[in-house]
C-alpha cells in the first residue's frame, strides 16, 4: 500500500503552503526521515521528510504551486506499485497537535479540524469539571487512569495521584519539549542562559511601575553613559537628520484578543507566553514585507531597501531604554516571534544581550502603551525610516458600519516616519496594512 506525502499545516493560522523545491524526484529511492521536499509559507520554510522508506513513485504538486494543508504532494511505495492519478486531500492537524489524544486544538477561523478522538472507554462514566481541568493543565489522557469513583469514574484524587506518579513532561512528544533557548550550546562560562532552562518568565502585558528616580530635589544628577547616548541619538535623529511626521491609526483588537484567548493555554503548555507584542510584531513584519519602502534607509544617493526585516523592540530599563532586534521577523511564526520577544525582553532587562542582538535593526516598535499612554510621537531610531508606537489597548465605544454602537478593545498605532523617504500617502498605506492584518487575525 503506498504512503502519502502530505502538505503539513505549518503554523497556527496557516492553512496552505507552497512547494518550494523537490529534493527527490520521481523514481528516486528515499529513506525514512529523509527530507523529500521544501515547503514554504509566508512565515517559515520547512522540509517534509519521508514517513517510511521506499521509492518516490509520483509527485502531484509542482514547485511553486500553493496548495491547502492536507493536500497529497506525492506517493512513496514499492517500485512498480500502482498509484492513483488524483488523490483526495487529507485532514490534518496543525503541526505539533497530532500526538495529543484528548485535546482539541482550534485555531479561530482556519479550517483545521480536531484530531481523532480518544478511543471510547468501556464504562459509561463521564469526566467531572475539576478532573477535566486538571487533565488539560497537565496534558493527561483521562482514559489512561484507573478510576475509583462510582462505575470506575476517575475522581480528582485519582488524577492527582496519577500525576504525582508520572515523570515530568513524559507525555510531550520530543519536538514539543522546549529547549534551552540558546540556538547553539555555548561551552563558555559566560553563556547567556543555563542548559535545560525552561523559557524565561515573560513579562506580563501590564503596566510597569515607574522606576525610582535617583537623587533628591535640589541635586544635580550626573549623566549616565546610557542617558548621554540616548540624548545624543534623539537630538541627532529628530533635530538634525530626519523630518519627523507622525500619523495615527486606530485598530480594533477583537480578533487578536479572540485568537490569543483561544491559544494562550496551548502556547503556555509549550513554554511560550503569548503576549500582544508578538501579534504587533507579526503584523508589522508582514506589512513591511508588503511595503519594502518602509523597511529602508535614506542615503544621499538613493533609498536603500533593506534585504532583511529586522524589527527592534524598545524595552524600557530603569536607567533608559535598549532596543533588542528580532532578526528576519517575517520568517518566524507567531510562536517563534512570541518566544523570541519574551526572551529578548527578559535578557534586555537583565543586561544579558549579545552585541549583535542590538544591531542591524531595520524598523522599530515601541510599546509606549504599557504604562497607559494612548498615542505618541516616537522618535525614529536612526538609520531607519520609521518607528511604530503601540498605545494602550482600551475598550471604547465605536460605531459600526450599520450605525450600531459597540464596545471594542481599541488601540492607537502612532507611526513616525522620515518624510524624506515616505510621503503621507505611502506611510498611511503601510499602517493601514498593519491595521488590516490585526483586525482580520485568524
Amino acid at each position: 500500500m503506498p504512503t502519502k506525502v502530505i502538505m503539513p499545516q505549518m503554523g497556527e493560522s496557516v492553512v496552505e503552503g507552497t512547494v518550494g523545491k523537490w529534493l527527490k524526484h520521481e523514481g528516486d529511492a528515499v529513506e525514512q526521515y529523509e527530507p523529500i521536499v521544501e515547503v514554504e509559507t509566508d512565515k517559515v520554510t520547512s522540509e517534509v521528510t519521508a514517513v517510511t522508506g521506499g521509492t518516490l513513485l509520483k509527485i502531484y504538486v509542482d514547485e511553486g504551486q500553493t496548495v491547502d494543508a492536507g493536500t497529497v504532494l506525492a506517493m512513496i511505495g514499492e517500485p512498480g506499485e500502482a498509484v492513483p492519478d488524483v488523490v483526495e486531500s487529507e485532514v490534518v492537524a496543525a503541526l505539533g497537535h497530532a500526538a495529543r489524544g484528548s485535546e482539541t486544538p482550534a485555531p479561530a477561523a482556519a479550517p483545521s479540524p480536531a484530531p481523532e478522538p480518544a478511543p471510547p472507554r468501556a464504562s459509561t462514566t463521564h469526566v467531572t469539571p475539576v478532573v477535566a481541568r486538571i487533565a488539560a493543565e497537565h496534558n493527561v489522557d483521562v482514559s489512561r487512569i484507573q478510576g475509583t469513583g462510582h462505575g470506575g469514574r476517575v475522581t480528582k484524587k485519582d488524577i492527582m495521584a496519577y500525576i504525582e506518579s508520572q515523570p515530568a513532561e513524559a507525555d510531550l512528544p520530543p519536538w514539543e519539549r522546549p529547549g534551552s533557548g540558546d540556538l547553539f550550546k555555548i561551552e563558555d562560562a559566560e553563556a547567556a542562559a543555563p542548559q535545560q532552562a525552561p523559557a524565561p518568565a515573560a513579562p506580563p502585558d501590564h503596566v510597569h511601575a515607574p522606576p525610582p528616580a535617583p537623587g533628591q530635589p535640589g541635586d544635580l544628577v550626573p549623566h549616565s553613559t546610557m542617558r548621554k547616548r540616548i540624548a545624543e541619538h534623539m537630538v541627532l535623529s529628530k533635530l538634525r537628520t530626519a523630518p519627523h511626521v507622525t500619523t495615527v491609526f486606530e485598530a480594533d483588537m477583537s480578533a487578536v484578543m479572540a485568537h490569543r484567548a483561544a491559544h494562550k493555554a496551548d502556547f503556555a503548555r509549550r513554554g511560550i507566553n503569548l503576549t500582544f507584542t508578538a501579534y504587533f510584531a507579526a503584523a508589522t513584519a508582514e506589512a513591511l514585507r508588503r511595503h519594502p519602502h518602509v523597511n529602508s534607509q535614506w542615503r544621499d544617493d538613493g533609498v536603500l531597501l533593506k534585504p532583511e526585516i529586522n524589527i527592534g523592540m524598545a524595552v524600557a530599563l530603569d536607567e533608559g531604554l535598549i532596543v533588542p532586534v528580532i532578526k528576519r521577523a517575517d520568517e518566524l511564526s507567531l510562536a517563534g516571534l512570541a518566544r523570541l520577544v519574551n526572551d529578548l525582553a527578559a535578557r534586555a532587562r537583565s543586561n544579558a544581550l549579545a552585541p549583535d542582538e542590538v544591531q542591524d535593526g531595520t524598523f522599530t516598535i515601541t510599546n509606549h502603551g504599557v504604562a497607559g499612554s494612548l498615542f505618541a510621537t516616537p522618535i525614529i531610531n536612526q538609520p531607519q525610516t520609521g518607528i511604530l508606537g503601540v498605545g494602550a489597548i482600551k475598550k471604547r465605544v465605536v460605531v459600526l458600519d450599520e450605525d450600531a454602537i459597540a464596545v471594542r478593545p481599541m488601540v492607537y498605532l502612532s507611526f513616525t516616519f522620515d518624510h524624506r523617504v515616505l510621503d503621507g500617502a505611502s506611510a498611511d498605506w503601510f499602517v493601514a496594512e498593519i491595521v488590516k492584518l490585526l483586525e482580520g487575525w485568524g
Partner: protein
Amino acid sequence: MPEITLIEGLRQAMDEEMARDDRVFITGEDVGPRGGVFRATVGLFDKYGADRVIDSPLAELSIVAIGIGAAMAGMHPICEIQFADYIFPAFNQIVNEAALIHYRTGGDWHCPMVIRAPYGGGIGGGLYHSQSVEAFFAHAPGLKVVIPSTAYDAKGLLKAAIRDPNPVMFFEPKKGYRLIRGEVPDGEDVLVPIGPANVTRQGTDVTVYAYGMMHYYALQAAQTVAAQDGIECEVVDIRTLVPLDKETVIASFKKTGKALIVYEDNRFLGYGAEIAALLSDEAFEYMDGPIRRLAGLDVPGVPFAHTMQDLFMPSPEKIAHAIRDLAAY
C-alpha cells in the same frame, strides 16, 4: 474559662450591650419580669427597669414597627418575636420598611435594630413552634441575617448585631439553647464580626456547609465518618447568611470539590439552594461531584408526632450517610 449555654451567651450579650449603650432597649412579649418564655432576658428587667425592658402588646407587627421608629429616632432596639413562626404579621414592616430605609433615603435615615427570634424544630413544637424562616428574609435586600451555632458566636454575634447600624435578623436555634454549650471568656468584650463564615473543621474530602443546629450535627457526623470511614470532612459554619462570605465558601469547595449543604428549612428554595447555585456558577471547574443539599421535607415544618418529626429533621446519622455517599462518588 467558664462554659456557658448558647442562651446564656445571648443573655450576656444583651446585658453587656444595655450596660454599654443607653440607646439599647428590649421589647417583645414577656421579655420583662418573666424574662422571656425561654428566659433569654432573665434578670434584665430587674437590672434595667421597665423603661428599657418593655413588655409589648401581643402584636408582632407593632413590636417591629415600634422598633423601626425608635431606631430612626436614634435608639438601638432589640425586638423579640417569641417564635419565628409568628413573625409573619411583621413581614411587611420588616421587608418593606426596615430593610429599605437606608437605601430609600440615600443614607439620610438608617435603621439600627435587631429582630431576634427562636427558630427551628426537633423540640416537639408542631407546625407553629418549629419553623425555619431565614430564607424569606435572606431573600429581601437590605437585611442582615445571622444564625449562631455556638455559645461563643451567640454572644459575639448578638453584640455585633446590636452595635450594627443596620437591621439584623437574628435567628436562634432554639433546640440548641441549652444543648449547645461552649467556653466563653469572662471579662472581655466578646465580639464576632457579622460577615465571615467559620471553618470549624479542616478536611480534604467533602465540604459540609451548615448553620444553626445543623452545624452542630454536621460536626458530629464529620467525627463519625472520620473515625469509621476515614473520610476527612471540612465543615463550614455559615453564621452570617446575608451578607454571605463567598470567599470562604468557594475556597473550601476548591479544596474538596464536593459540597453537602445541610439546613433544616424546607428543601425547596431554602437557603442552601443559593450556595449550590453559587458553587456551580463560580467554582464549576473545581467540582468533583454533584452539589447536594440535605434539608427538611417539603411539607409544613414540623409535624408534631415524633415519628413524623424524625422523618422531617436532618440528623447526625442522616448527615453522615449523605457524606459517605458523596465521598464515594
